[in-house]
């Protein structure tokens, strides 16, 4: 059969994938009432919208990078220790790294849906030749990333071209292609890893710990993206130091590390290799050798992807378990706690949810270590720690939609249980509060020795807590009213990015307002910043609680 036939079949499969991604019928979600004829169109549109959101973020990253390049061109005093050519290369390195991280993260989110939707196994028994099936699998896999990939390939060269000239823009293309290939390969690799070691992991305390440890590793791309942005100034400072030091082993290592060899191409196209020679006298040789090696790896990755995508649907489960009876101690708890425990258990086998739980905690550890290990003065460390707590509180506003989405799994079965919405609400809000407090506790633990005013920190954490609770109550209350009525399953990134973003806005405002007032009061020299913050947070909680527990929500 031809490529045309493969495209036709993949279009049918992608329609089914979109439907399952948005409405999750295979996970037991109910058919929404109303215009069921429009479900297919609506689900396809929603997937396109969500892909557009990712594409816009990627485009903005490229434009942001270009703005920094432009700024350096206009203002050489920006990180003066870093020569312009090296600076440009570092910025393009950042863009390429972020592209890999964001695209990989996208894959991590959507590949489990590709598998659970089960669209390809439907085609397998049909009389379709293996080559066509491989093509269909490949097209389907690629279509998960098509718009984001297009955004990377179009916007980034344009942005780099605008900042450094048209040749530099064109020179960015090889690095972008290699970055995309690596992202897709990493997505598939971690997808397989996920199925075998996370989704298929047995129950039990020890295995749960191992599973969470795997998930921490799996979060590396997302965390790397986040960490890259927060540590960028420190990176430029270190780069300045490296440049001042002259040729060194570290410099050569940097030149040979992906994506530096490709990121150097726009700079070379616009200004030559002079700036890079500082790092290593054999820069050109190292760059060429590394670029060839990485390009070869990319070609191999494409071949590997072509052969492996189809197998993703048919990964064998582990060997069947022994049929021997095992003592089944079952420990029921209260309903709200059961919801919390269930969510944690599901998250421990679902990286998308695990990501949300682990991100503020990893962020707390990272910032805690930073304040502890760097020679910061105490007030600066205090500000950084308070900033980290604020970040944890703001990140918590994304938990409401995410944890509500867990409720959509097996939604139709869950609705047959005598489980009041109030218990669901309390379970999820308690989980959000726990994550916030764990993150804050970690920051406090790391920074305790450096903070001369730990009571300020403690009071700040506690003053913000009602606002975090209010934001969670508000979001979940809104979701009960809205999402259930519409019958939407917000089970993954491509199913309802807009939905999650919209609901998060009031949550973000609620969680952020007390911190803003605290900052304003502090800037104005008032000593009542914490009191104002606590008062506003409690008022928010007082308003959000009846809304969340009121008719139509609970």
């Amino acid at each position, binding site marked *: 059969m031809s490529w045309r036939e493969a495209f036709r079949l993949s279009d049918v499969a992608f329609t089914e994938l979109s439907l399952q991604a948005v409405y999750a019928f295979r*996970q*037991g979600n*109910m*058919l929404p*009432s*109303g*215009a*069921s004829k429009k479900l297919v169109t609506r689900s396809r549109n929603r997937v396109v919208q969500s892909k557009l959101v990712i594409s816009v973020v990627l485009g903005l990253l490229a434009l942001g990078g270009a703005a920094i390049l432009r700024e350096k061109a206009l203002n050489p005093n920006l990180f003066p220790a870093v020569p312009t050519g090296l600076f440009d290369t570092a910025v393009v390195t950042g863009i390429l790294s972020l592209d890999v991280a964001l695209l990989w993260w996208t894959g991590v989110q959507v590949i489990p849906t590709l598998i*659970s939707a089960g669209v390809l196994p439907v085609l397998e028994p049909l009389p379709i030749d293996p080559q066509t099936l491989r093509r269909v699998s490949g097209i389907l896999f690629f279509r998960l990333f098509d718009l984001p990939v297009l955004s990377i390939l179009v916007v980034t060269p344009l942005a780099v071209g605008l900042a450094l000239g048209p040749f530099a823009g064109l020179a960015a293309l090889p690095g972008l292609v290699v970055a995309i290939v690596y992202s897709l390969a990493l997505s598939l690799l971690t997808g397989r890893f996920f199925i075998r070691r996370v*989704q*298929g*992991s*047995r*129950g*039990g305390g020890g295995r749960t710990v191992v599973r969470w440890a795997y998930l921490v590793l799996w979060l590396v791309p997302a965390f790397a993206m986040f960490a890259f942005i927060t540590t960028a100034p420190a990176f430029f400072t270190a780069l300045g130091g490296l440049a001042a030091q002259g040729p060194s082993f570290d410099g050569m290592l940097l030149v040979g590390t992906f994506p530096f060899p490709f990121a150097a191409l726009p700079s070379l196209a616009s200004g030559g290799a002079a700036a890079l020679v500082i790092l290593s006298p054999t820069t050109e040789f190292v760059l060429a050798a590394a670029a060839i090696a990485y390009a070869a790896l990319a070609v191999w990755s494409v071949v590997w992807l072509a052969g492996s995508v189809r197998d993703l649907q048919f990964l064998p*489960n*582990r060997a069947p*378990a*022994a*049929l*021997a*009876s*095992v*003592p*089944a*101690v*079952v*420990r*029921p*708890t*209260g*309903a709200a*706690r*059961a919801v919390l*425990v*269930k969510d944690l*258990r*599901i998250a*421990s*086998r*679902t990286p998308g949810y695990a990501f949300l739980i682990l991100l503020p905690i990893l962020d707390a550890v990272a910032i805690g270590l930073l304040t502890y290990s760097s020679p910061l003065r105490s007030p600066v460390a205090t500000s950084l720690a308070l900033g980290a707590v604020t970040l944890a509180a703001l990140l918590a506003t994304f938990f409401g939609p995410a944890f509500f989405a867990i409720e959509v*799994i*097996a939604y*139709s*079965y869950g*609705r*047959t*249980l*005598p*489980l*009041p919405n109030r*218990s669901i609400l309390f379970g999820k809000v308690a989980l959000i509060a726990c994550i916030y407090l764990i993150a804050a506790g970690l920051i406090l633990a790391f920074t305790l020795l450096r903070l001369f005013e730990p009571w300020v920190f403690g009071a700040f954490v506690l003053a913000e807590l009602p606002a975090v609770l209010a934001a969670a109550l508000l979001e979940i209350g809104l979701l009960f009213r809205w999402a259930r009525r519409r019958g939407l399953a917000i089970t993954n990134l491509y199913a309802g990015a807009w939905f999650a973003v919209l609901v998060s806005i009031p949550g973000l405002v609620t969680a952020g307002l007390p911190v803003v007032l605290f900052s304003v009061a502090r800037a104005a020299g008032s000593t009542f910043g914490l009191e104002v913050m606590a008062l506003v947070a409690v008022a928010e909680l007082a308003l959000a609680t009846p809304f969340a527990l009121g008719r139509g929500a609970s």
Partner: protein
Amino acid sequence: MSTGPSDPSPVPLTVDGLSVSYGERLAVDRLSLTVKPGEIYGLLGSNGAGKTSTIKAIVGLLVPASGRLQVFGRDVTTEPLTVKSRIGYVPETSMLYEALTPREFLEFVASVRHMDVTTTTRRVQSYADAFRLGSELEEPIATLSNGTRQKVLIIAAFLHSPPLLVLDEPLNSLDPRSVRIMKDLLLRYVAGTGRGVLFSTHTMEVAQQLCQRVGILDRGVLRGEGTLDSLRERVERGDASLEEVFLRLTEEDAGVRAAVDALGNSDA
């Protein structure tokens, strides 16, 4: 769990004038039936007859367009939590929390149903032994076979000893041994008690073996209801099997012959 002392009625299930619609399509049309204490009531029908829609309305998954649904005299719409606490439900498709293991899933269900550790552990162990669920209790549900998932759903439905079981094709995917256990279990579960079972199936042999009374649903309308003998009288065939009664009442017997003839001719 038995019926609550305050329940207004000893009748496990009363369906009165139930209509269910999907947009403009009427799936169930003014259906009325009763499941009596100590009875297994079989709801029979072809594919798309409205069995699952009826059941989903009873367990609170669908809002009826009209009609009244009562479980032990309590209205499904106005007292949903009380009604749900009295029902054990096995859905047609195994829609479970795939990321949980059966033990974790049953722990969640038992928590929601406010059960204690001793009773829950004893019951889970008994049912797991009966259905030969060994270390599968600790495997993620996503990795289990359809038959094993069905067993997990059955255990979840029986876990709190509900006074009303609502079973939608519960024997689907089960192995013969488990089917036999399930059938014997159901007969023993209701015998001499105030409990009731609503059992949906399109397998006539199973219905004939298990059900004291059956209701025959066809395109959303109840075509006949009663014991096998009363239905035989109605179709005027004293020796008819339930399958023959079903086809006669749904006016499909001639249609079946015509379809087989047409298929035979197309093969010739």
